[in-house]
């Protein structure tokens, strides 16, 4: 016993709790003081515990972080790639540069000595037009007693600086489509810059001239800005009032001739008769337009001569006011209309829509129920407007829904609120829908009025 114990203790110098000196003495054994069988057992135990712990760890990790999530980071990266790719394409689409256009960089120098013209001078347009109409009776300029009108509008060919701008362009064109369908007016939506020199707000001049000359069957060309919305779907322009005039524009004579204000009239919505006089006026209007030094210099003249005009390059509205003030003989055929809102400045109108709906009815066209609400200064297609964005966009939405309610009435719906895209029923479905068609179709009241064929 003693010998054994002695040897055991001696060997187990390590096993008694002191620092194990494993390698030298035991030859690799972990617990040198313990019998071999026991040791194996112990090793097994440790192994078991290790494996068990490892297993538990894996389970826990899987339960929390999850293998799926590691794969999820791949999907996330793919998503990110897709978004970056889309952004790159969007930037390319938005940029004005054209990779396939060789003329892009070479800008033609405008020679200031050569006067700009819209086109070769035409002097006999009235006779030519009349002859054409006589030769083509199937394209008359009056249909059922109503003059043929062509509504012209447009927007730049590239996407707006901000997506919400395009959305409101879309709503505005839907609004115009609705009015024109009800009133039998055709629409031309222009997305092309016909003349590089007259870009921007001046672009309407070559466009109007081009359309007049190509469509002799059109009696009136009605230009309307893309930021102007119809808000009275029933009102019709009293064309018979303008039998002796060739140009109808919303404006005030006292602002024009006494105050010489730069907002005396508004060229966002006006009508031009298709005749020689109009071609001549367009030719006289155009000279301040060509971009570059001409437009800049003209801008200075306009700011100096018109009241309240800020300093910026010449715009078509100021130029027209200046022209009409300087050459008063044009005024013989110009009608400054203000008995209804051929153009209605939005700020004073949009807050009163609910009041209008309560007190009045469509068909008035004036301050009680404006014909056109024009969002001057909002510029939703650009990056900055002259007014707070939220106010502009909310007002545009309200104006759009205010008009849309008048269209939806025939179908028995209206918007839930002036800011709501959703609609609600105001009339139940019926098995005899035609009685409501007679009652609510706006065209019935419009056509019935001018036509004397009613039984």
């Amino acid at each position: 016993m003693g010998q054994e114990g002695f040897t055991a203790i001696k060997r187990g110098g390590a096993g008694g709790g002191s620092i194990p000196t494993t390698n030298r003495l035991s030859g690799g054994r972990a617990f040198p003081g313990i019998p071999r069988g026991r040791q194996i057992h112990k090793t097994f135990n440790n192994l078991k515990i290790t494996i068990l712990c490892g297993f538990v760890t894996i389970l826990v990790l899987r339960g929390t972080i999850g293998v799926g999530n590691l794969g999820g980071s791949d999907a996330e990266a793919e998503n990110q790639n897709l978004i970056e790719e889309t952004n790159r394409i969007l930037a390319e689409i938005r940029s004005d540069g054209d990779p396939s256009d060789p003329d892009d960089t070479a800008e033609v120098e405008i020679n200031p000595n050569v006067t700009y013209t819209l086109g070769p001078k035409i002097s006999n347009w009235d006779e030519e037009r009349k002859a054409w109409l006589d030769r083509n009776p199937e394209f008359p300029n009056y249909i059922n007693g109503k003059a043929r009108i062509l509504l012209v509008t447009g927007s730049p060919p590239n996407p707006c600086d901000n997506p919400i701008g395009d959305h409101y362009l879309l709503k505005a064109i839907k609004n115009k489509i609705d009015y024109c369908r009800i009133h039998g007016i055709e629409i031309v939506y222009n997305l092309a810059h016909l003349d590089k020199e007259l870009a921007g707000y001046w672009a309407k001049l070559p466009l109007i001239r081009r359309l007049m000359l190509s469509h002799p069957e059109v009696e009136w060309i009605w230009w309307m800005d893309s930021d102007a919305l119809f808000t009275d779907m029933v009102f019709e322009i009293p064309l018979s009032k303008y039998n002796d005039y060739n140009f109808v524009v919303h404006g005030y004579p006292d602002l024009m001739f006494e105050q010489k204000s730069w907002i005396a009239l508004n060229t966002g919505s006006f009508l031009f008769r298709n005749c020689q006089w109009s071609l001549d006026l367009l030719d006289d209007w155009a000279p301040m337009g060509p971009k570059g030094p001409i437009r800049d210099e003209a801008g200075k003249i306009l700011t100096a001569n018109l009241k309240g005009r800020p300093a910026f390059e010449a715009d078509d509205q100021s130029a027209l006011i200046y022209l009409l003030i300087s050459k008063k003989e044009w005024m013989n055929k110009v009608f400054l209309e203000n008995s209804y809102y051929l153009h209605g400045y939005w700020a004073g109108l949009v807050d009163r829509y609910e009041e209008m709906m309560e007190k009045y009815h469509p068909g008035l066209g004036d301050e009680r129920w404006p014909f056109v609400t024009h969002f001057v200064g909002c510029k939703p297609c650009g990056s900055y407007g002259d007014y707070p964005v939220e106010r502009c966009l909310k007002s545009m939405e309200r104006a759009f829904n205010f008009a849309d309610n008048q269209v939806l009435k025939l179908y028995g719906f209206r918007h839930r609120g002036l800011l709501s895209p959703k609609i609600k029923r105001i009339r139940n479905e019926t098995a005899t829908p035609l009685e409501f068609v007679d009652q609510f179709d706006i065209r019935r009241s419009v056509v019935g009025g001018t036509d004397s064929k009613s039984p």
Partner: protein
Amino acid sequence: MLERCLEARPVRQIHRALRHGKVALLCLFVTIIVLRSTIGAEKSGTPEQDFDEIRDHLHFRRRAEPRRVLEEAQTTDATNINNYNTFDPSKLMVDEEEDEKPDPNKPYSLGPKISGWDEQRANWLEKNPDFPNFIGPNKPRVLLVTGSSPKPCENPVGDHYLVKSIKNKIDYCRLHGIEIFYNMALLDAEMAGFWAKLPLIRKLLLSHPEVEFLWWMDSDAMFTDMAFEVPWQRYKDHNFVMHGWNEMVYDQKNWIGLNTGSFLLRNCQWSLDILDAWAPMGPKGKIRTEAGKILTRELKDRPVFEADDQSAMVYLLVTQRDKWGDKVYLESAYYLHGYWGILVDRYEEMIENYHPGLGDHRWPLVTHFVGCKPCGKFGDYPVERCLKQMDRAFNFGDNQILQIYGFTHKSLASRRVKRTRNETDNPLEVKDELGLLHPAFKAVKVSSS
């Protein structure tokens, strides 16, 4: 032995105690982790959140610089409230009332059953000679119906393509004397998505008795042949015209045997009846999902998704051919709907070899961008291909309009235009090559006075 055990006891005890302690600590740790991962601790969060945080942190470090620059640039904007780029469009629209909940017990119907619509309509037309249903000898009054969502597109350029698409339709319809209705209202919340056209079409047919044919057209379809006039006479004995092939629908039961992205529907009792027969698979939720399974099972090659109006129409025609088939015309002689994938690369070849007015594979009437979904965030095809090809298709159609006025796009990819003929002082002598300036199909009936 006992003595030895006793001697070694304190050391052994410590050892054992230590080991027990280790095990206990380990078990405690494991318990805490498991509890945390399942129940989660409020402030410290779950391990998943940890993982996300770590990932974000790593990402943030990678992209910290540019993000910081962008944010700074935005905050230095003096007139922030006038800046469209910083505006959040979701603040714009207000939903004022609750959606009406449909009665789950009542089966869905588009509206009260109308019978005798043909007589009602004929009476009305007689009493209203100012609104004839035929505006020319062989020319019925047609209303083109299209539409999109009243909310801005998810894709930033989606609305721009919608504007171009409607301009394209305005041009074709102006030339052909067709009226347009652009819908932005969801008439029935149960029939949302591609089914929304059914209640709309029914409502328009009943509200416009003067309309003889209603032409539905998707917002992602564009006119590419401005000179082609639909051969109305061909359909005088039919009420429903779709692009498709009889064999693919009736024999193969293929889900793309016809296309409901562009079709003509006559305003008559038969049409109201087929709309009623078409609608049952539409109501969203369980009905639509279950119907989708039936359609995938019954139709060839249809993938698994909820019921769509096109598959439902194929199924309807296949199962009730004797009831509806004789009045349905599956047109394949021209592209009333033209799948864009096989057309867009050939535009230059078409310009070289053919001319407008053909309407078929040589010069397609309609190029339909199925699957592109430019208004949404993700389509079935690469974004770049879709958008660039939509530009090309638009320009291809626009060139035919611009040439009337003496202009053309500089190339099919370019937004810019150039002159094709100089201005003249004799504008009425200009030759109208395609006959689109004063086309015969727009001529007004000359009244003999």
